[in-house]
């Protein structure tokens, strides 16, 4: 039988590759793994299509996310791109802001870089739980408005929000610093036991239960009151 490709017998079929090809391929591989991890997390956590904010549930989701991303070699650009992908909804079938934020937080906390910058101002949706359990030595900068429970469980890291947050900012934080350039919502600092929250804009409401830590507004200490009085 004749070989209809005879004319290409001598053609050297090595592909010419430039670094761009490697970069794009590596990126797609990593993004694929990360997206897969997120989808798996959501499917595990949101079996009933309802996701309630309970401490145990949040922690469970976070631990599950950590386990998933352990083997993935990603960087901060991948995290930002995941935000875009989740917002776009193309490859990712569902956005559930809670688990999404927890997953992103796990990625940030586990990333190689000490300083991570996420540009979120173009996104249509807001993420909750960003900065969850941010550890000491890590700085996370969020550009744009974000959702609820930002900086929840902050554990010594530095979280800077160049925008406004939703409700429960700094909830349950233990140590570290939370800077918010614009406004916050209700229950700011709820159940926090340490650390500092600095707000440059309006505070819609401070939580009734605050166990420790300090809250500043426009550079002025507003909580705890007794310290305020002393100062």
């Amino acid at each position, binding site marked *: 039988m004749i070989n209809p490709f005879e*004319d290409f017998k001598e053609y050297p079929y090595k592909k010419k590759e430039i670094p761009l090809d490697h970069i794009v391929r590596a990126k797609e591989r990593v993004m694929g793994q990360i997206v897969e991890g997120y989808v798996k997390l959501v499917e595990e956590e949101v079996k009933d299509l309802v996701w309630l904010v309970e401490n145990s549930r949040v922690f469970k989701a976070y631990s599950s996310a950590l386990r998933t991303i352990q083997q993935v070699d990603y960087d901060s650009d991948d995290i930002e791109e995941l935000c875009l992908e989740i917002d776009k909804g193309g490859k990712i079938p569902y956005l559930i802001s809670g688990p999404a934020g927890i997953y992103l937080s796990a990625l940030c906390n586990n990333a190689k870089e000490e300083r991570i910058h996420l540009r979120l101002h173009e996104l249509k949706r807001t993420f909750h739980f960003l900065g969850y359990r941010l550890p000491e030595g890590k700085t996370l900068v969020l550009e744009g408005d974000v959702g609820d429970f930002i900086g929840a469980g902050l554990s010594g890291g530095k979280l800077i929000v160049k925008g406004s947050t939703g409700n429960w900012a700094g909830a349950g934080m233990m140590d570290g610093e939370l800077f918010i350039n614009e406004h916050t919502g209700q229950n700011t600092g709820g159940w926090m036991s340490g650390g500092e929250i600095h707000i440059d804009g309006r505070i819609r409401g401070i939580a009734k239960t605050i166990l420790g830590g300090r809250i500043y507004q426009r550079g002025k200490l507003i909580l705890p009151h007794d310290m305020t009085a002393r100062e």
Partner: protein
Amino acid sequence: MSVADDSALYPSGLPVCARRCEKILQTYIAVTRIACPGSTWRRDLGRRPQDFVVNPFLACYAEEYVEAHKIEEKARGKDMEDGNIRQKVRDIYGFIQDNLYLNRPDMRVGEESFNSALLFSLLTALNRGKELIIGEPGLGKTTSAEYVAAMTYQLPLGLIWASEVSGHPEQTEEKIIGRPDLGRLNQGEEVVVWSYLAQLPIKIVDEINRLPETKQSMILDGVDRGNWGYLNDVIINEEYCLFATANYQDRGTNTLIAPLIDRFDVIVESRHPGTNLALVIGMKDRYENVLRSPVYERDFQEILVEPRDYQEKMKRIEDLCDRFGDHMEKEFSVKMLSQGERKEIRDCVQEIPLDLDANAFLRTVIAELSFCFKYGQKRSDEHCEEGCHYTGFLCHHIKNCISNRFPMSVRTYSQSLAWLKGDEGVGIEHIKTVLPYTLAHRLQWKEDYIAQKQGDTRRDPFQIYLAKEMVNEVYRRYNEQSRHIKNALAVAYQALSGKDLEPIEGDHPIYAEIKQDLEEVR
């Protein structure tokens, strides 16, 4: 020098006589250059014959070397000859363009401009093709073919006129191919009197679309095979080409049906030459034509009507053609092509290789014109699905599948074009030039695609314009992924040769076709 040393420099020896024979020594060195490119033959040219030590055991190879030298000389000479013939063909083109078929160049090939009708007519005459020439009445469709025929086949114009068949419904086989010799028929003998059309290598059919389909088919069959049969007799043309003209659709015309039109290699339009050239044409004396020669025409006719064996007649015809050609050269400085030269051209043309890009590009075109993801191949009676993945490719815009005649036409014409330009190989440029003219008549476009393009500003007739647009589209896609396609083809070769390789994937019908070829075999 010892023999051992010799062997490093001279892989084989010379006869003893070579030491005294400068010419053979030079021959030896020339052959060594061919046989051993890395040898030191250049240094040897200055050495005296007596300084060489020969190996007498290898003396028997001397003749071979001399022979090899002759081959080399011949090849060098052939190149020169080839160049001369090429120039002759260009001169013919130039002569017709400047004196007989005045028209504007309408295409560029590299740095040169050509008139498409004239160029393709010339290529058709040279490579035994079949050309369909369309155009408005009176714009030189038939005359362009007549001039080209006359000059490439050394035939006087009057003879060509006499051999033409004009298309009308009442044409009969007897008028086209041959008739019984009536006198002999009355005596009970079946002897065929062949028409000029059947006998001469040039076949010109005017307004072929006015012939009934049976007659169209009869002519095309004859030209396809070179065989013309009537009653129980057959003549076989060794050399032939067909020029058929057709007006646009008008009252009283039939259409050329798809199976018939597919047999044409190329379609061209004979255009209006523009206002200024039209006036120049109008000022010429219509009866003055240097290609006419009543004397020779009569001689030709006498031979053609002789009741002789066809092969003998053709030998005499060729002799007369050569005499006519010489006469034209002497009297009018008009050079024509002899049979030998035409054969040489065809031999040269056939040898011209397609480069890899031309090859791959052509495969890409064929893939888009024959592929169907859903039904395995394009078929006229099967319709595309909405939302097919391959909607962006040509297979979505056409109804029919391209025939196998198409790549043959492309190859022949692109090789001829490369030869004419003096290029060593056929490249994408040649393929791109030739493609629209080999495709325009073979594609049946879908109505919605036609509707979208009908309003476009253009210079070509609609069919040819669509074909050019199509070629540009495929060219763009090829340009983007040429390396990938060539890689895919190379991998396919290796896979079919037994290597364990997976076919390369890609988003184009060509990859699917390659995959299918490999699957069928595995």
